[in-house]
């Protein structure tokens, strides 16, 4: 592509791609063609052979907390795939370099047991005194604030009103269990390396209530979109590996799973409205879950 094309405001991303590719070539073990793995919501992820270079969301505060998270992850190499060094500043963007790992194949048998085991082992790690607090569940409040008018939107807002004030952004997080937690776990956060499965993405890593790491599959199971057998494989492996949420699993999970159910429902509605399409079956099931949450009352 002639260099003259790379001018004007719309070429910001190609320029960033070039910078990330250059960093990748400098870190990769062997020469390889740069390849875009992800390019959405202001996040750009470029793979060059055995390394992945990520430009993080431009509108988030990183600073010292991200550096502390990278140090925390680097101390747990048997559980987490950590960035290889401190974050870089690339034209004002926060950039990290991480070894490449194969993502989960959605068409194959899903690694529920490995996910449950990795989380149980993470939650059993001693919390370092300088561990940052986890990323807090602020996402649900931000997403609900973006909703427009409509029947589904009303159901979501009613369910959101049942959440405790600290999740709605109206109070400080009350003291509770404090473990090392991933903070945003889903199957896209699992990669397979030569040494086995690892957890990826340390942006919300820190000290917090471990129930939040189980909240997304729990919400999908309670929403009726995740088969009970898959939930059991995950929760069973977590418990068998000594996960610290013991017998009162559901007692610990009620509020985090409600939050995630509402967050997922809001994400589905925003995505469907943005694409000007109706909600599909599983998406509607999450709206119906919000209606059941409202009927149950305050958490």
């Amino acid at each position: 592509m002639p260099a003259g094309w790379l001018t004007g405001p719309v070429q910001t991303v190609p320029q960033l791609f070039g910078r990330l590719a250059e960093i990748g070539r400098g870190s990769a073990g062997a020469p390889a063609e740069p390849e875009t793995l992800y390019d959405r919501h202001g996040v750009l992820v470029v793979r060059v052979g055995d390394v992945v270079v990520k430009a993080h969301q431009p509108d988030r505060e990183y600073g010292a907390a991200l550096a502390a998270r990278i140090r925390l992850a680097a101390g747990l190499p048997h559980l987490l795939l950590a960035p290889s060094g401190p974050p870089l500043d690339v034209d004002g963007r926060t950039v990290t370099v991480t070894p490449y790992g194969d993502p989960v194949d959605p068409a194959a048998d899903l690694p529920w047991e490995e996910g449950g085991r990795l989380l149980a082992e993470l939650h059993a790690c001693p919390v370092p005194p300088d561990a940052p607090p986890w990323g807090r569940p602020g996402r649900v409040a931000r997403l609900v604030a973006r909703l427009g008018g409509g029947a589904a939107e009303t159901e979501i807002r009613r369910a959101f009103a049942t959440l405790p004030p600290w999740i709605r952004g109206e109070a400080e997080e009350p003291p509770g269990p404090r473990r090392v937690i991933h903070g945003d776990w889903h199957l896209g956060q699992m990669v397979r390396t030569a040494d086995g499965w690892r957890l990826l993405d340390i942006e919300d890593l820190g000290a917090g209530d471990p129930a939040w790491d189980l909240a997304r599959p729990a919400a999908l199971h309670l929403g009726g979109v995740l088969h009970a057998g898959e939930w059991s494989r995950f929760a069973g492996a977590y418990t068998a590996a000594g996960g610290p949420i013991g017998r009162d699993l559901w007692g610990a999970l009620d509020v985090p799973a409600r939050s995630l159910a509402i967050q997922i429902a809001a994400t589905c509605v925003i995505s469907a409205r943005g694409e000007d399409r109706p909600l599909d079956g599983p998406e509607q099931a999450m709206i119906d879950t919000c209606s059941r949450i409202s009927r149950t009352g305050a958490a």
Partner: protein
Amino acid sequence: MHCPKCRGVMRTYTRSGVHIEQCDSCRGIFLDYGELEALGQMESQYRAAPPPPAAAPSWGAPAAQVHHHHHGAHRPHHGGVFHMLFST
């Protein structure tokens, strides 16, 4: 020691720290002082020990309404479910 009822031979067994004497002939059991209480205490501990696991929250989907994409054998997740499982 001989059985106070049939004069058979009593044999000593130890079960969970409690000594019991049992007659080889009539199978009668002889408990020492305090051993009946010890057994009773163990029974009540056994009954009280495991609190029932918490039930799933009442807002969970009734089984009949479950929107699974796959039935029985393994089928990949797709559409909305894929995004819910694989992205933030």
